[in-house]
């Protein structure tokens, strides 16, 4: 079992619901301070988006953030360098599109993530059927390969994905790209379908916008991932204090 999953299982065993905020690396020059603020406010793990020019699974908020980060010169290497200066000790997970890793070299990319202390990776345009090479590279560097489960995923695929996912299972609440939403959609059904096949920690993401939604999702899931709603705070000019307030409000809703 990879280090990430050991950590995340321990959080569950302690009776705590996991809160996983998402940040776009390089969105601001002090983005690492945002991460530290989130950890201070009770984040259990952090998802770090490495910006890509063509983010097929992202809505307008993260598209805009990725564009700004790219204009600021963010790369996989610069993101990993920044992470090295992070004064926080929660598990880190990278999220980016396959071309970034493919172009960098799979083996080398997994090694770079590991060296930066990143324990897992989410690659939303890399389905199970195409993931073998990436998984081999990650296995060599203790990087967990995390798979998404969609409301459209049929039971036989859920079973195969549940076997393959490492660290946690990413349950998409809805048929949508990342963004803000009015409710948590099909999250409960997706989580229960995963539970039928695996006891891997299962986190709900895609559209989690309010603390109340996080509370609802945590009533059946092991944790929540909050992306666009938080990135919007930063796009609107929020700094570490605003990030801390935002994350604290979710922490209270989960505890």
């Amino acid at each position, binding site marked *: 079992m990879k280090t990430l999953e050991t950590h995340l299982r321990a959080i569950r065993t302690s009776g705590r619901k996991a809160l996983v905020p998402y940040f776009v690396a390089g969105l601001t020059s002090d983005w690492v301070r945002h991460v530290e603020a989130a950890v201070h406010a009770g984040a259990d793990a952090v998802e770090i988006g490495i910006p890509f020019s063509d983010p*097929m699974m992202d809505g307008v908020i993260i598209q805009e953030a990725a564009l700004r980060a790219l204009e600021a010169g963010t790369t996989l290497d610069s993101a990993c360098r920044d992470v090295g200066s992070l004064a926080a000790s929660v598990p880190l997970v990278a999220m980016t599109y396959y071309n*970034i890793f*493919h172009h960098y070299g799979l083996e080398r990319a997994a090694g770079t993530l590991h060296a930066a202390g990143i324990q897992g990776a989410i690659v939303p345009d890399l389905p199970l059927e195409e993931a073998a090479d990436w998984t081999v590279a990650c296995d060599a560097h203790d990087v967990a390969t995390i798979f998404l489960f969609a409301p459209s995923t049929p039971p036989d695929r859920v079973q195969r994905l549940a076997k393959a996912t490492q660290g946690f299972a990413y349950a998409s609440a809805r*048929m949508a*790209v990342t963004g803000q939403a009015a409710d948590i959609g099909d999250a409960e059904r997706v989580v229960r379908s995963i539970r039928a096949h695996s006891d891997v920690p299962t986190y709900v993401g895609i559209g989690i916008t309010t603390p109340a939604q996080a509370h609802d999702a945590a009533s059946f899931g092991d944790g929540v991932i909050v992306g666009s709603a938080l990135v919007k705070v930063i796009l609107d000019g929020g700094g570490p204090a605003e990030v801390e307030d935002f994350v604290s409000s979710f922490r209270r809703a989960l505890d």
Partner: protein
Amino acid sequence: MTDMPVFMTRPDERGRFGRFGGRFVPEALMPACLELEAAFIDAWSDPVFVGEYERVLRDFAGRPTPVTPLERLSERLGIRIFAKREDLAHTGSHKINNVIGQTLLTRRMGKHRVIAETGAGQHGVATATAAARLGLECTVYMGQLDTERQSLNVFRMELLGATVVPVMSGSRTLKDAVNEAMREWVTCVEDTHYCLGSVMGPHPFPWMVREMQSIIGREAARQLDELGVGTPDMVVACVGGGSNAAGVFAGFANSSARLVGIEAAGGSAVGKGSPGVLHGMKSLLMQDEFGQIEEAYSISAGLDYPGIGPEHAYLAEIGRAEYYAIGDEDVIDALRLLSEMEGIIPALETAHAVAWLVQAAGSIIPSGSSVLLNLSGRGDKDVAQVRAILRGEA
């Protein structure tokens, strides 16, 4: 004969052409891609379905399109040029072949809506046309820059009952329209088919679209036989994603003909690209040293694409097809030449292939060669832009 390689057959079970192709899509779209693959395989082996597809192309789209010997241009260039007249197909380009097939398949899958991306607007107009014919709802995603360059095509789509959504992200051209169509498809995949317009995207699209365009090559092979030309020395087509080229190549892939694809210099995935993953496929892409996709630039919106279909990447790699690039500066001259010498105003995309013939005749194309030119589209959509360029306004 058992040692003869066979080209342009089915990709492998993972949708690969050599190391290219595959299916790199979000999990949310995987079931739809698998369903589409199964539905296409079933339909394409059903004589009733194929019969209807061919009948609609004949009775509605005007197939077969003729092959026209380009006598004056041939004499000028010292080669024998035969044009496959996809410009005469309904809606003005080869795009109609694919959308007739895909909309019939949409209905067969029980879906009632299609979405599509478009660059120049040809595929959008064709999709809106085919959707109107079957009473399917239709939404077309088009880069905002392209909606300005091709405003008449936007109006055409609207006349045909489609909704056109200008895409404001990224370079606001074809690549961003594909991103947006993919994002939209995630939200409506239950009742909506994504009618992709070229031999690109995730499996089965590159294969399916090539199959639905291969009628171009099959007809042309027969027509050249009837003209007494037989197998041409060379088959030439412009390439953005590569659907018209794939369609015409398919008729000659296992003949002695040289296959030549002409890219726009500013969108030259074979010439300037490297292997990468975008829009659901592994192919050759224009990208920077970090794997960020570069923006393509071309005078023609239809070739303004930083990638190429995976089968083309494969054909280039194994050397079965050759790819060359033509810059914007040669395209207008070629458009005027074909217009003045042959009475055919080609689309700006097609004019790239004409420009290459002018450039390569007597060198890469030996004098006296017989050349099949896929005249993929007509230039009506481009005349306002060409007028502005010739008047020095653009």
